[in-house]
């Protein structure tokens, strides 16, 4: 007489609406037996239900004000939807109301961890529109500051990734070294994070006379520190266990999502705008584009993305050294010699892009040929595009893995929300 059946078939009248809902979802069942005309419940399954978990906007590991609305089944995430816009500052609308050079400070505030790179990308776009010739020394200085900022940005990415996985000390080691870069950049530009240093057509100032020597000192100091960081974090058994094989993104899907930067390279695609769409003096420089080979990590997983960042710092150091050696002398150099008095480009449109620490940052600028303000200035943000894969990546992961995946995407909400 014993039978196992859904609750509603036996207790249709008695069961609550909640129970009926659960039954429809196929959850919660009872084992019953009949004694005469009475139904006796022998065993009742614990009805489980999914829980909505709002992760963020105030959560330690959403790297700012990202909100992820997760549907969780225990610790397993069945679905995670990112909610954006907590840091929206109307970048594009602001740009339509100010002159071209006045947009530069706004670009600093996109990816505030790599202000120099954002300025660089914007300068490339407007210079393309204006078609101006840039002094060679300016290009070298631009590359040096941009690569230093890339190292600083990757240090933050690696350090916070350590925190996401519970290792606190690498974070402070990273910030100690980043501090040196920030003070060097402050020396050159006068600001620690929001520089307004790379102007359209040139630079705000020349670098201080002793700058190159100090940068070289930093490079020599930092080389052993990368090894230390590698030993402390990247080679750590627990770290590898937490990241290897987690959040795998195949190369073709990554390309379809429009991923760029370390994320795409982590999936095994050798794509770096400094090589594939060369700008500035990058073609003259010798550096490698690190791509995981699948030996220490599974291609496309969180560890690969972390490794790409760690190896890229080495390449940036190489670039900085070469730039210092090849840089033309400061004699008769005016950093503002090519800066136009009044930026009024011909009517037309342009898309300029550069390889930022987080991927491709592009500016699409439209000019009507009459105004000194752009008709339209759209920023193509790498973080935003990289984050769009969150829904795919998070399906079926555990909460700790979700944290690891968000950390490996390395988002800066300033650039996601703009």
């Amino acid at each position: 007489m014993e039978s196992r059946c859904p609750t509603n078939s036996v207790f249709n009248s008695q069961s609550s609406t909640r129970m009926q809902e659960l039954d429809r979802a196929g959850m919660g069942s009872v084992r019953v037996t009949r004694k005469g005309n009475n139904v006796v419940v022998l065993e009742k399954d614990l009805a489980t239900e999914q829980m909505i978990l709002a992760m963020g906007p105030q959560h330690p590991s959403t790297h700012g004000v990202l909100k992820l609305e997760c549907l969780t089944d225990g610790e397993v995430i069945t679905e995670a939807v990112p909610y954006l816009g907590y840091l929206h500052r109307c970048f594009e609308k602001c740009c339509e109301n100010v002159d071209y050079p006045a947009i530069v400070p706004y670009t600093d505030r996109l990816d505030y961890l790599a202000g120099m790179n954002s300025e660089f990308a914007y300068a490339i776009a407007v210079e393309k529109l204006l078609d101006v010739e840039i002094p060679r020394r300016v290009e070298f200085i631009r590359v040096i500051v941009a690569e230093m900022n890339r190292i600083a940005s990757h240090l933050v990415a690696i350090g916070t990734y350590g925190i996401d996985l519970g290792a606190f000390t690498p974070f402070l080691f990273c910030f100690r070294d980043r501090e040196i870069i920030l003070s060097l950049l402050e020396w050159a530009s006068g600001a620690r994070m929001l520089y307004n240093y790379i102007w359209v057509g040139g630079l705000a100032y020349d670098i201080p006379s002793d700058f190159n020597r100090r940068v070289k000192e930093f490079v020599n100091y930092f080389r052993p520190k990368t090894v230390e960081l590698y030993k402390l974090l990247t080679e750590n058994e627990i770290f590898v266990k937490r990241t290897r094989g987690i959040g795998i993104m195949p190369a073709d899907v990554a390309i379809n999502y429009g991923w760029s930067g370390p994320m795409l390279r982590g999936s095994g695609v050798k794509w770096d705008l400094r090589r594939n769409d060369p700008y500035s003096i990058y073609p003259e420089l010798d550096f490698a584009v690190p791509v995981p080979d699948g030996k220490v990590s599974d291609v496309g997983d969180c560890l690969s993305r972390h490794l790409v960042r760690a190896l890229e710092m080495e390449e940036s150091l190489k670039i900085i050294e070469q730039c210092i050696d090849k840089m033309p002398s400061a004699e008769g150099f005016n950093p503002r010699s090519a800066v136009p008095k009044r930026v009024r480009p011909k009517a037309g449109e342009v898309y300029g892009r550069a390889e930022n620490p987080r991927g491709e940052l592009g500016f699409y600028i439209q000019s009507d040929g009459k105004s000194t303000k752009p008709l339209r200035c759209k920023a193509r943000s790498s973080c935003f595009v990289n984050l769009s894969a969150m829904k795919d990546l998070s399906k079926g992961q555990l909460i700790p893995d979700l944290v690891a995946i968000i950390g490996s995407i390395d988002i800066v909400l300033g650039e996601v929300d703009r």
Partner: protein
Amino acid sequence: MILTPLPHISMPLLMGNSLNAWSEALVGFNPMGLPLGLVILAAIPLVFIALYSLTYGVYGERKISAFMQDRLGPMEVGKWGILQTIADILKLLQKEDIVPTSADKFLFVIGPGVLFVGSFLAYAVLPFSSAFIGASLNVGLFFAIGIVAIEVVGILAAGWGSNNKWSLYGAVRSVAQIVSYEIPAAIALLCGAMMAGTLDMQKITMLQSGSYGFAHFFLFQSPIAWLPFLIYFIASLAEVNRAPFDIPEAESELVAGYFTEYTGMKFAVIFLAEYGSMFMVSAIISIVFLGGWNSPLPDIGSFALNAWTNGPLWGVFWIIMKGFFFIFVQMWLRWTLPRLRVDQLMYLCWKVLTPFAFVSFVLTAIWVIYVP
């Protein structure tokens, strides 16, 4: 002072002797038939417990982590920031005591209390020296293992009562973790108990005393003992929720785990309970495997180093030093290692530690039976 090299050896030995003489005089100090001397002796470890939680526990953790991370740590309050923890406690005392409106008030309030009691009850059976043990139970070790489980009730009450999803996650993880890790921990301690043939903490300690100092400790008495020693150390990290097993309060995942909603003094109580448990497990491991309050120094020839550095007050010194050493290792690990995942934690417990604990149990039994 005792550890610094001195020009001639008689100085520390003299001190040791006078300490012994002093404490023996105290034991015999019975004005009007009241054992006042014993009370004073007993008060020393109790004062220590309070001071330890305030100073070494929290302040030490901050300083040690600071030195590991190229920082200075607290420097403002008092010389080298020594009074920082007291200032923090004073600040926490002044905080508004918030109970969330949707919380289960009874559970929310009772949670930290249960946690605190659970963590400090085990101190009752810890022998701090030959003269001091709160309650000399003949099942002391069993009591210590069992009473820690009360903490689970406190954690679950705190996590469930908070009515916060993160707290609930933290509480469920914590309970699963502590209940699982109690098994390898208990089996590992059982190996020590087997070697002693008793569960009485005081007797376990006494069995490890002798003129060769550390050579009498259970860890060095049998070649197998290092296995349960390591297993218990790893399992105790998980039991007190320390890194790399700080999964219940994983700040990057669960905000703050089961105490997300706690503020003010309730938060401080949870915090102190954690540091209390840290010393408790460190003391247990040093009692069972490292001789408790026995001096590790051996007699060298005619130098009766061991006898001179043993005594009721020396006992307090040695067990505290041994405890501090393990606390230091716990902090060292915490500031070096990342955190394991929940399933990896359970894998480690059930598939690695528990089988090895059984192996060490059997091997120790063979050793105890067949090797005199």
